[in-house]
């Protein structure tokens, strides 16, 4: 009997669990992701001649149904779903060509714009009664056009009241899947996105409030958090931060810098004119 080395066993394991898509319109090209709820493959849709992402589920089709029910620009659209000969279920979705949020290195303004889009997608899901339950930078893709797409709704599929789920570092202290838990995770994502901007106290205060230990002390919804970040971006006062006089002056200067510079320029010209006329 042939001795199988460890890497050969690894390949045989993958071969044995490889989904059998013969008899379907899909041809698997390669595995592109693996999580607790299933495996994602890059595949070719032979009918429409396009590349899609296929997720083969470990357990049931609830995730596909949830994603299909969430039609939003910030949530990956599901094209199709089915059952494999071995009984496992799969669904086909748009293949997002881009990078994960954890790899995204844009300027802070772009990162905050992306963050607001994520909040909007999560708020939309909440409005439909769906809690993501495992928000983290690895579960957000930044597409080729700068769009932010929230992925991996597998935990949402199993989420029932009281279910404990999430990823360490992004999971709220109460550990229970809930909208408040999603707000906490969004706060943790914002913490990562503002990395290197420790001097921005208002941004830090937003993160602290979103990640408050007690759920009731956090923003009441993902939209409230989105609005707070929008205020920060627009140079308005953020609710979570009590600013000092100097800080307020600096913020107002930045916010109204064009008007202030115009007034200063106007006054300088008047003074120059007066000086000229007195000669």
């Amino acid at each position, binding site marked *: *009997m*042939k*001795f*199988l*080395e*460890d*890497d*050969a*066993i690894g*390949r*045989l*394991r*993958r*071969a*044995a*669990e*490889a989904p*059998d*898509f*013969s008899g379907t319109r899909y*041809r698997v090209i390669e595995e592109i992701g693996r999580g607790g709820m299933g*495996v994602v493959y890059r595949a070719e849709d032979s009918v429409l001649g396009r590349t899609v992402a296929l997720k083969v589920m*470990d*357990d049931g089709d609830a995730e596909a149904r949830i994603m299909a029910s969430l039609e939003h620009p910030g949530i990956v659209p599901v094209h199709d779903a089915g059952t494999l*000969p*071995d*009984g*496992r279920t799969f669904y086909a979705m748009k293949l997002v060509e881009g990078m994960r949020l954890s790899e995204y290195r844009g300027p802070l303004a772009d990162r905050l714009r992306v963050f607001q889009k994520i909040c909007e997608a999560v708020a939309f899901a909440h409005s439909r009664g769906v809690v993501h339950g495992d928000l983290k930078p690895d579960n957000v893709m930044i597409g080729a056009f700068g769009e932010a797409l929230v992925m991996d709704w597998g935990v949402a599929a199993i989420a029932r009241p009281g279910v404990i789920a999430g990823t360490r570092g992004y999971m709220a202290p109460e550990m229970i899947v809930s909208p408040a838990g999603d707000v906490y995770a969004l706060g943790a994502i914002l913490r990562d996105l503002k990395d290197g901007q420790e001097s921005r106290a208002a941004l830090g205060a937003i993160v602290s409030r979103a990640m408050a230990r007690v759920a009731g002390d956090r923003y009441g919804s993902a939209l409230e958090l989105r609005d707070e970040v929008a205020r920060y971006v627009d140079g308005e006062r953020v609710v979570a931060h009590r600013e000092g006089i100097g800080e307020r002056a600096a913020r107002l200067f930045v916010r109204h810098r064009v008007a202030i510079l115009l007034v200063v320029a106007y006054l300088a010209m008047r003074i120059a004119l007066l000086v000229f006329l007195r000669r």
Partner: protein
Amino acid sequence: MVAAGSLDAGERRRGWEALVGAYWKPVYKFVRIKWEYSAEDAADLTQGFFARAMEKDFFRAYDAARGSFRTFLRTCLEGFVANERKAGARLKRGGDVQMLSLDFVSAEGELFEHPPAAGSSPEELFQREWVRSLFAMALEDLKAECEAREKQIYFRLFERYDVDAGSSYAELADEFQLPVTSVTNYLAWARREFRRLLLGRLREITGGDEEYRADAKALLGMPL
């Protein structure tokens, strides 16, 4: 496992063959590493262990509610070796035990060429060798199945792509003078059969439905 305790003699023999086939190498290597027995003594103890287990039917005492069959078998082995050590004697080759045809030379060669990783315990070695035996048996089954159905080329493709690796579908298509679609289809068939045979073997050597499902999940990353 159930077959090994069957009242039907033929089924019982097949059950024992499956059990011994999957476990003899893990047992031999475990004895060699844990108690540092010589190759000859470890071979004698392995023979003696399975012979005694068959003779006394002590796997019948297995209770699925108390853990996996794999752990139970290892505990039986530890008890057996402890008794042998206490008695201060070892079983004579070809003595009063029924000898099994086991290739201890190859097992010893494997141990020499692929020694346990530094820092790993004998129990971890036992587990890894059990997985290795299971996959090796399923691979042999697939080979036999392909030969019986005159699909040798399916097995050769599977062996090249999923065991040895290093070739693309296009390279295999070129080498085997086949269209790439045929390579894809043949491999899909072979993988499906391999999965079926692997799960069949697993069913034979686990102690019940719950253990079988848990092991299938752990080995193949999917529930059944």
